[in-house]
């Protein structure tokens, strides 16, 4: 702060240093099935750190608790930052819903959120993204910029990298650290509850 004897109380006008935000094009979510029973759910591995290990536990949860759901793990064909139309086409052709994960870094969380919105809005397949809780504000901003502010998102604790199968199973069987609700309940609801924008 300026010392009192040097203080200048005259008001001055200065310029705002911020740039201009992009225009947002609002998108519509895909319609949801009433139930996942008899459906095929794709688990999309973004290939950052140990994402696939967490998705294996999600797959195990379905096998144990919702055996009528068929699941298939698929890894992105290249680096997570690139769009992957071939994978989205396969999901559209052979699947009924998609779970994309795990967003757990500053660049892969935006990518995972964007991929889920793409699957949802461009390919018409209900999707939910899994992220770690550190990235909740990042993901919220990306969903808004991506035109689907209420795109379904579920959080697990950070970190995922290096955790054992038992620890990741506990994440999946546990609660979302942001909402306090069961992770798998949120995932199933996200894929079977119509979004307001749909």
């Amino acid at each position, binding site marked *: 702060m300026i010392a009192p004897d040097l203080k200048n*109380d005259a*008001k001055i*006008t200065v310029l705002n240093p*911020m*740039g*201009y935000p992009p225009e947002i094009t609002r998108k519509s979510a895909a319609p949801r099935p009433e139930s996942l029973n008899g459906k095929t759910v794709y688990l999309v591995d973004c290939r950052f750190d140990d994402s696939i290990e967490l998705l294996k536990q999600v797959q195990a949860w379905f096998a144990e608790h919702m055996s009528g759901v068929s699941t298939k793990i698929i890894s992105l064909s290249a680096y997570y930052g690139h769009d992957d139309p071939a994978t989205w086409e396969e999901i559209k052709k052979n699947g009924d819903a998609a779970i994309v994960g795990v967003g757990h870094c500053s*660049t892969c969380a935006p990518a995972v*959120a964007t991929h889920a919105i793409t699957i949802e809005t461009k390919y018409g397949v209900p999707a939910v993204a899994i992220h770690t809780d550190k990235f909740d504000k990042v993901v919220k901003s990306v969903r808004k*910029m991506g035109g689907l502010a209420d795109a379904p998102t579920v959080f697990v604790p950070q970190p995922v990298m290096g955790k054992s199968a038992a620890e990741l199973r506990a994440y999946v069987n546990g609660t979302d650290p942001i909402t306090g609700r069961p992770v798998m309940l949120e995932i199933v609801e996200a894929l079977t509850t119509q979004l307001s924008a749909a």
Partner: protein
Amino acid sequence: MIEAKGSTPRLVEPATEDELQQLFLDNNWTDKLPIVLPTEERVAAMLAHTSHKPQEIVGRMQPTANRGLWEYTVEKVAVNAVMSGAKPEYFPVILALAASEVTARGSTSSSGAAMVVVNGPIRHEINMNSGIGAMGPYNHANATIGRAYGLLSQNLQGGSVPGETFMGSQGNNYTYNNITFAENEERSPWEPLHVQKGFKPTDSVVNIFYGCRSTTFCLGLREKYWREHVKDMLAGVDSNTPPCLLLDPITAQQFIDRGGFVKKADLIRWIYETATMPAGRYWDLQLVQNYVYPWATFGREPEATMLKAKDDELINVFQEKNINVVVVGGEANGYWRIMGATYRKSVSIDDWR
């Protein structure tokens, strides 16, 4: 000329200097150090040093991919340039940095920083330092141009706020001024960096690198084991970010004396051939798993061929085209370092005069 549509207010509500300093601090518009308040008069003085119109769009920027590209004009760049304390005659350099559309406030959890190398006549016109202390806080142009690059990046891309638009887990002190310096072209035995990137020696250019997380350093090159010592240094650079050799002129000459690298390209070739690692160990690195392996399985070359190597087979860690050499320093001694830094872009400063 394309003009911005403008959804951000041009002016801030009038207030005292004290209140405005606090407002800029509270709004996360600064690097947490005091700034020069961007009054109409100061911004106009900055704008007088370019032929470009205030409302011309300079570029678009975002903290990472998929965050949404924010747009900015010449005037918006000038506002941030004033805030940094830069003199108006530096403005074309700052505009060139803004025009690169490479953010110096990337939101990578790895906490990267930019590095800016300035080449050409502009170095002398604005008295930039390429000699003793060039990479330290001892020159007004180096200091404020680098600071301006950081401020304009965070404000023109829509913010750099921890937990929201910045997720660097540890942060990076280099981001205060983004290692901004002039290359010591006069004492370099090789062609300057911008000529290597396709510009004429008489062009003034900013060259932008990004990464700057890993640094190894050494004194000179000893006759007996210099090759092994350099190989050890290269092992200390993270395998996903190629080496940029920052050589004091004394060491640049030593590379010629010891290795016969009369051409810079010969030195780069030798660095490429020297930086090797058993394939099994290379592919097991987490950064390589995240950022290189997916491209290898996708079929992109040379990664796909590298993936065919047996675990104990030596493979080249870096691609030759990604290795760079810059001469900087004042010959106080033959100290030199290797910065893990990816070359991103070179932009003409003359285009922004």
